[in-house]
């Protein structure tokens, strides 16, 4: 396992574009977060919105970049055929997948933490938000975990479908379609249900710091829902990579 980790780390750091993608995660998260914070005007009529959530809006774009990174981690190997070489070097396939998951977790955690911290620092200047508040810190830590879990979800999905383009479409479909259908539905119970099971809506519940008694799913439970999606995707990917011919 240590050798597989070392190999995956070398692979990731020598893939051109990894650094750029990680910077893009940070830039997208901070950029959209700052924009959202800047346009939220709390002077007129007070702020009834969840300021922590506003300041972390950038996570919604950041997750797309994380998904690109995660899809690339294994998808680029499938599209070039290099996966054969990887599995020849490390024939224990679950070890390969686990090593990829760990390396991905490490780099996404770093980038996400930078992005989330940047967003909160900006919000501290732009909004009347107590960033050291326990709930705000929970929202921040949860957002970092959220991005990591989105990455793991994308890794699992890509391992399962092997085609990186299709995997990218599937991951973004999973993330975006639930809230979109929720927007279109006329049935509030159905919408609540979608918010409870959709990986994005449920996962982002971890950003809620106000109105906690009226949310569809509580913060940590919502993150656990996303965790379940990621675990299911990794499980499917793990089973398929183990059972299928490479």
């Amino acid at each position, binding site marked *: 396992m240590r050798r597989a980790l070392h190999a995956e780390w*070398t692979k990731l750091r020598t*893939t051109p574009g990894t650094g750029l993608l990680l910077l893009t995660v940070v830039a997208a998260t901070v950029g959209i977060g700052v924009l959202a914070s800047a346009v939220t005007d709390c002077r007129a009529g007070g702020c009834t919105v969840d300021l922590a959530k506003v300041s972390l809006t950038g996570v919604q774009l950041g997750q797309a970049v994380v998904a690109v990174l995660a899809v690339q981690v294994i998808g680029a190997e499938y599209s070039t055929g290099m996966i054969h070489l*990887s599995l020849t*070097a490390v*024939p224990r396939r679950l070890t390969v997948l686990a090593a990829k998951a760990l390396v991905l977790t490490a780099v996404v955690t770093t980038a996400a933490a930078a992005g989330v911290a940047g967003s909160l620092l900006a919000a501290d200047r732009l909004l009347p938000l107590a960033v050291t508040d326990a709930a705000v810190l929970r929202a921040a830590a949860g957002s970092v975990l959220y991005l990591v879990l989105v990455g793991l979800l994308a890794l699992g999905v890509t391992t399962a479908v092997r085609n990186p383009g299709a995997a990218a479409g599937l991951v973004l479909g999973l993330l975006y379609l639930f809230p979109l259908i929720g927007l279109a539905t006329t049935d509030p119970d159905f919408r609540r249900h979608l918010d409870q099971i959709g990986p994005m809506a449920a996962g982002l519940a971890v950003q809620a710091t106000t109105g906690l008694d009226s949310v569809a799913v509580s913060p940590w439970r919502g993150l656990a829902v996303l965790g379940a999606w990621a675990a299911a995707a990794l499980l499917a990917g793990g089973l398929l990579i183990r059972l299928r011919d490479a």
Partner: protein
Amino acid sequence: MNETSIVVSGLRKRFGPTLALDGMSFTVGPGQVTGFAGPNGAGKSTTMRIVLGLDAPDEGSALVGGRPYRSLPCPLRVVGSLLDAGALQPGRTARNHLLWLAHSQGLTAARVDQVLEQAGLTGVARRRAGGFSLGMRQRLGIAAAMLGDPPVLMLDEPFNGMDPEGIVWIRGFLRALAAEGRAVLLSTHLMSELQDTADHVVLVGRGRVLADRTMPELLARHGSLERAYLELTRDAVEFRAAGSPEASR
């Protein structure tokens, strides 16, 4: 069998309606270059993929150094292989491509530089592998196969895209490896090259072994390896162009 060998016994593999392997059995012994030849679709690649644990056989087994490939803790130190020279991420440099492979076997960058030197790639080690010609990619693939200094080597069509100098190099290189006591399996369609390089030939068709003889035996019986090939695989060819002498027969 000692650890310097590939033992393939009774492999069967079906892909949908196609029976790719139909009881493939042979042994690759140490200290010689074993040629692996047969028509397109005969099952050569599938056999090598099964040896490397990439595909699972429906029946039968493939052992490397007496063990299934997937159970080897550091497989590249036991078997070096080259299946598809194009299977690399084009954006990575040649050296970095070998570096992650080395790290996966607990090897260091020093070993990477050694095999780069051996394959004659030192000058281009820091160039993107995506810009390499096919011949250079083959050299890189052979360097990767040599990385773990393995007692067994398995190469699929290493002559493809090689310039004459490169072909001469591979030939001498493989002979030297065999002389060191290693087992070398060399799959190719180039009968003249094989005739000059191999000591032993496993000829396959329709998923099974058609002939498993030493080179002197084949040459004594058929005159040349090419003739031996054409005569032995006559009934095992799946794809044949209209108008070829064999088709009109």
